[in-house]
């Protein structure tokens, strides 16, 4: 079933703007952006077993890169896109070199610490980053011959990049590198005993994840037209972690689906009740206790996680 799912989803997503309303198109654009973000984290959490609470750092740093470039007149997508991705990757390299020396809770806390430091810089360095007010007025990127201002063309840009990112990440997951990552998740000591340089492998995964998060960060900045320190705050990292876990870690499709579900649920629920935090928390608890493979697990019939 999963083999056909991806192409089928791609076809449906490609047709959306042609039939459905502007609002659905823009909402789906945001969902696809977060889907890339969530899939990037899945590489760490689901495949390598590295639970990071600071993934928003790479997302946010890329978004700010775009904001700053835009403020200085650099609007060509051919420049800003690679710049943002590179920023995400570079930040991930820096963080990874330090944080990956630790494991478990210590690793979690270090990733959190670095993300909070990035938040503090964005928050305090008001002269450059706009402080709490952030950077607004980010115009859509310039691509020769195209106007990316209206929602439909921009949607297709995001859609194409989503498909590319999903394809790339799947290839990586299916490669020997991906298998090694899973091996590290299962039993790192054994992998090391077998001669793998687990530190290098983990760092590689970390940088790839950072680059992919950077890609989604670039698109996010263009989508909203502004960026503020909130994207770097730990709750932003928490939210993408939630998307991965609710959707089903280790499947790539799960986090993408999770992104959609969480965003839609958050939007809908908070329009009807002030208690949507309670609903989200309860949904979590339910998923953990009754559906540990997340939504993908439910849909593909793999009910309980094999220990």
């Amino acid at each position, binding site marked *: 079933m999963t083999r056909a799912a991806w192409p089928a989803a791609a076809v449906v997503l490609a047709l959306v703007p042609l039939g459905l*309303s*502007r*609002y659905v198109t*823009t*909402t789906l654009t*945001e969902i696809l952006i977060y889907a890339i973000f969530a899939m990037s984290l899945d590489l760490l959490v689901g495949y390598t077993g590295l639970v990071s609470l600071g993934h928003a750092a790479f997302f946010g740093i890329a978004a700010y890169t775009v904001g700053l470039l835009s403020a200085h007149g650099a609007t060509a997508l051919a420049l800003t896109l690679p710049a943002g991705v590179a920023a995400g990757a570079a930040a991930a390299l820096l963080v990874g070199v330090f944080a990956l020396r630790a494991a478990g809770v210590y690793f979690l806390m270090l990733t959190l610490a670095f993300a909070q430091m990035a938040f503090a810089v964005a*928050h*305090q360095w*008001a002269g450059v980053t706009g*402080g*709490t*007010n*952030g950077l*607004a*007025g980010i115009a859509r990127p310039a691509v020769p011959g195209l106007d990316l201002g209206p929602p439909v063309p921009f949607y297709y840009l995001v859609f194409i990049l989503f498909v590319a990112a999903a394809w790339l990440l799947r290839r990586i997951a299916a490669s020997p590198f991906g298998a090694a990552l899973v091996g590290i998740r299962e039993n790192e000591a054994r992998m090391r005993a077998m001669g793998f340089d687990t530190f290098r492998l983990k760092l590689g995964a970390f940088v790839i994840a950072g680059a992919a998060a950077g890609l989604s960060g670039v698109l996010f900045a263009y989508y*909203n*037209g*502004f960026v*503020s320190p*909130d*994207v770097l705050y730990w709750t932003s990292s928490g939210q993408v972690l939630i998307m991965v876990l609710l959707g089903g870690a280790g499947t790539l499709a799960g986090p993408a689906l999770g992104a959609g579900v969480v965003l839609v649920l958050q*939007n*809908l629920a*908070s*329009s*009807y*009740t*002030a208690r949507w*935090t309670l609903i989200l928390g309860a949904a979590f608890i339910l998923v953990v*206790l*009754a*559906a540990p493979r997340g939504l993908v697990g*439910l849909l593909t*019939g793999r*009910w309980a996680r094999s220990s």
Partner: protein
Amino acid sequence: MAPARKAGGWSGTARRITRRQFLGAAALGGAALAAGVRLSGGMRAGRFGVPAALAAGPVKIGLLVSYSKVYGQLGEDITDGMILYFDSVKWRGGGRQITWIREDEEIDPQVGVRKARKLIEADRVDLLAGIVATPTAYAIRDMVHNSKTILIVSNAGGNLLTRARKSPYIFRVSFTSWQVSYPFGKWFYSNIAREAALTAANYGFGTESLAAFKESFIPAGGKVVGEVLPPLNNTDYAPYITQVQKLNPEAIYNFYSGSDAVRFVAQAAQYGLMKSTRVTGAGFMVEQDVLPAEGANALGITNPLHWALTLQNPENRAFTRAYRDRFKRDASVFAMQGFDTARVIVEGLNRTNGDTSDKDRLSEALAGVKFASPRGAFEFDPNTHNVIQTVYVRQVRQVGKDIANVVFDNLGRITDPGK
């Protein structure tokens, strides 16, 4: 390795929930939500909507304020102020029924943008109102301007919205941070002290307020002996208070709001700062949303603001009494701003006879709205669409059994410079 345990508890229950039951429940939930989405054309009854008017073509207002997190009370106050006014005109303006859809901006600009987009694109509101937090206002500014949606800002006070980022479609009923603090600098020099230490929460609202204070304080001859800037949402002010005491200033001017204000005032009292120095601050530090929690600790704080609960004019007396009777609590400046927001909307609608389709015409009509507000005379600056209003000097005093801000001086009509 797990401890031996008895069966039962959740894991037992989980095994009893079959996959089919779970999916069934999820499907039902999904269907319910989908049904809700179909209904979300503004025709919902209940907490977030008023039942659609029976008359043709009601005016749909999108109200976006914070109902959750620390500024939840401000959102409630603004909403209640609006309800009070709309009730008084039976929810009619320009010959049409008024309805609204309320959303929570959650003090997160990302959420604010999402909700604003929903209100504008999906719900197709005729105008947008509210916005508690300045970053959210800045974030939605382009979307509002480009879609020619009229936005009436009920709170957010960032200066830029009236200056570099103003728009003919954006009206501000509340204040700019400059408006509140600028006129006080000069007054402070003449009435409090010639030297001051400044402290503020280190974010846009705080730093803008201090800059505005200095803009009139220093040219008048005032000297700033030091600035202490705790971060926003700081819990322990002790290190900063100790720093201020080291400066030994004759008087201080502060900016804090919300929980920061409550903590700062309490801790400043505990460390004797209230006694050793004349304490002043922008009115938000001791406004009604935080004054009850501050209590006697706040006594004596002199503060500027564009309204006070005790302001003596006929409109304010009527407003505060009606608010108290209806909502069983005292009005705040935020409630007053909500009240005026509603009035501006109704007056604007009256002037266009209910026409909301021509946004430029509606914008012109709104710009000309003038009336007597609980805060005094209300009008818009035609250049910036920001309110022109009187700023008062108040002091926290014991009034009978209560503690309240008493107005004792007046800083005149203040117009934001617009650049």
